[in-house]
């Protein structure tokens, strides 16, 4: 059970207009584990991440080929609704982006549109649990009616995580969730990610190798649209097979 495959991707190519952004990437993401994507800027790790919940669909010129299967179903299949897919594969962005609404409404947004709560009590329960999961409940429980934009950067990001969790996803994608945060907030979010691993499959894109080493169980190294290496995190950081990986990890480029 421990190493069950949640998302299986095979020969994925992504094109932005004429640019070949992702070249033939195949990789499997495990359930109840944290997978980290690392690599220098512009290597395609974020692009690949956005393929996993079809966020790339919102960009007109973007084209994706290959197979990506969630629990064995092709997510680019005809009958798959990207809207429903994104409910199962949630996402947290680089910059905290709370809606200009109250904290409660921010978290309740997902459950409301997906109809997860049958009544107000259910909704309250979902919001509270999500905020607890995101380790921010104690800080905001007395001011749920205040706008989410009034929180500090780290709180905003945890609010966004709570918002993603409230939709009850199976997979959580995180696109450099700590890059806009200070070290203390980063530590809080990292701790949170480690906890979230108990219930979800988490994929995180990060610039920081330390972060990848701290939170992830598996790590993939991207370079210029290619995935050069994918293995246990401990293996990647101690004994990488690929020369480029080695160079990147030791800080020779990137």
């Amino acid at each position: 059970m421990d190493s069950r495959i949640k998302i299986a991707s095979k020969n994925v190519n992504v094109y932005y207009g004429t640019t070949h952004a992702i070249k033939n990437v195949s990789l499997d993401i495990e359930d109840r584990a944290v997978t980290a994507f690392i690599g220098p800027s512009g290597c395609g790790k974020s692009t690949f991440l956005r393929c996993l919940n079809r966020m790339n669909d919102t960009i007109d010129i973007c084209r994706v080929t290959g197979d990506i299967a969630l629990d064995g179903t092709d997510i680019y299949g005809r009958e798959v609704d990207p809207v429903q897919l994104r409910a199962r594969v949630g996402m947290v962005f680089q910059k905290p982006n709370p809606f200009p609404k109250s904290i409660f409404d921010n978290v309740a947004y997902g459950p409301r549109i997906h109809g997860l709560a049958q009544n107000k009590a259910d909704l309250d329960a979902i919001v509270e649990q999500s905020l607890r999961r995101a380790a921010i409940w104690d800080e905001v429980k007395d001011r749920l009616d205040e706008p989410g934009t009034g929180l500090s950067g780290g709180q905003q990001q945890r609010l966004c995580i709570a918002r993603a969790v409230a939709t009850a996803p199976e997979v959580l994608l995180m696109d450099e969730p700590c890059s806009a945060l200070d070290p203390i907030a980063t530590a809080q979010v990292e701790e949170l990610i480690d906890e979230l691993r108990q219930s979800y499959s988490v994929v995180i894109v990060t610039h920081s190798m330390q972060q990848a080493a701290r939170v992830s169980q598996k790590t993939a190294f991207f370079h210029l649209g290619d995935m050069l290496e994918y293995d246990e995190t401990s293996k990647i950081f101690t004994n990488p097979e690929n020369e480029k990986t080695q160079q990147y990890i030791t800080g020779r480029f990137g």
Partner: protein
Amino acid sequence: MLPFVVLAIMVIAIIAFQLCRSKAVASAGGTLALLHSRPSYHGVYSLLWVLIIGLGVFIALDLIGFAIVDSLMRGELDNLLASTGETLRQIEKDLRISDAIKIVRGGLASSEGPIRLELADYFAGLERWRIGVVAVGSLAAAGGAFYVTYQQVAVGFRARNRSERILRSILWTAAAIAVLTTIGIVLSLIGETMHFFFTQIDGRFDAFFFGTTWSPLSGVHSGVMDPTKVGAIPLFAGTLMITMIAMLVAVPIGLFAAIYLSDFASASARAWAKPMLEVLAGVPTVVYGFFAAITVAPFIRDFGEAVGLSVASESALAAGIVMGIMIIPFISSLSDDVINAVPQSLRDGSYGLGATKAETIRKVILPAALPGIVSAVLLGMSRAIGETMIVVMAAGQGANLTWNPLEAVTTVTVQIVMLLTGDTDMATASGPAFTLGFTLFCVTLLLNVVALRIVRSYREMYD
């Protein structure tokens, strides 16, 4: 003759430039570095003063001379009339004076009677004096300015700083004209408004703001109006009704068009729809007026008749619909701007949670863009209230207090145009007309200020 004086002043200015420049070069004695300012700055300094003094005196003398000539002409005409025992109305006097001027200047006068010819002789004499005084006075002033500045040329003279200061004040004056315009609007409107309230209707403010009968020019006795006939409520109601119809057309169409263009349309659809809306915005209002009068109003009347409704041929509905069409591009482009100003990260956040585009727009984008949209609507309303040609050409002229959009109603702007372009006595008609204009100015100003303030605070939110 007088254009040549202007030309001569310019020539003096150019000569002054040359002379002062060479004097500066000479005074430096070969080492130009000794000069505080480069020689041409000495030239420019002199040139500016010659132009300012020369042209200033020219304009002042010309205007004063014109006023003096005008009053002398009137006096002379009165003398002439007194000698023949004729009495003329003001407008007939004006005609004789303008004919006399035309005779002198070689235009085609409406007729040539003895009075006109005598007046023309008199005018010719005055005109010679006027031109002489203006020419001599302004040329002397220009020459004097040149003399003074020429004396000032010296090695240490800070010509550059001084001429830049002059140029800077010219720039400042240009910027101040915008403010002066506003002051001018307020001053000119207030004067006539006070005249209307205190003299023409004897301080009865309530009669204007709450009265329901508008027919200000009927029952005027020696400049005083009947307070029961200056009630502007029917005009306000008519303006409001047409504005509301216009907004009912423009807001949904403009807003849905903006939503579609910003979040749904393909690049190619945007490429033709946006210019299409811009074309709609560029059509002059008089063309919309023609369209309303010749196509829309007859169509609505015929349609109404076909379904058994009685529709006035100048119905509020027709004017309102066409005005709405005019305002569509206004609402859509402003809304498009504010919708686009909502950061992409909010859209991504919503899509990432599995929201559809419609849900994202309704629950995230529109609430975020609401202040901007509200201000767009307010600006559109202000434009509709102040719009003139469509209503002048397609709405009614009689003040009619009704709730029925199929009847003819009149508006504030229509009444201003009727009062000031009709066959009316300007001195009497301008009171109510300017009062309506002032009301219009205040209401639109209020809407604009509120709208601009909302937009400003909204900008600050996302910048």
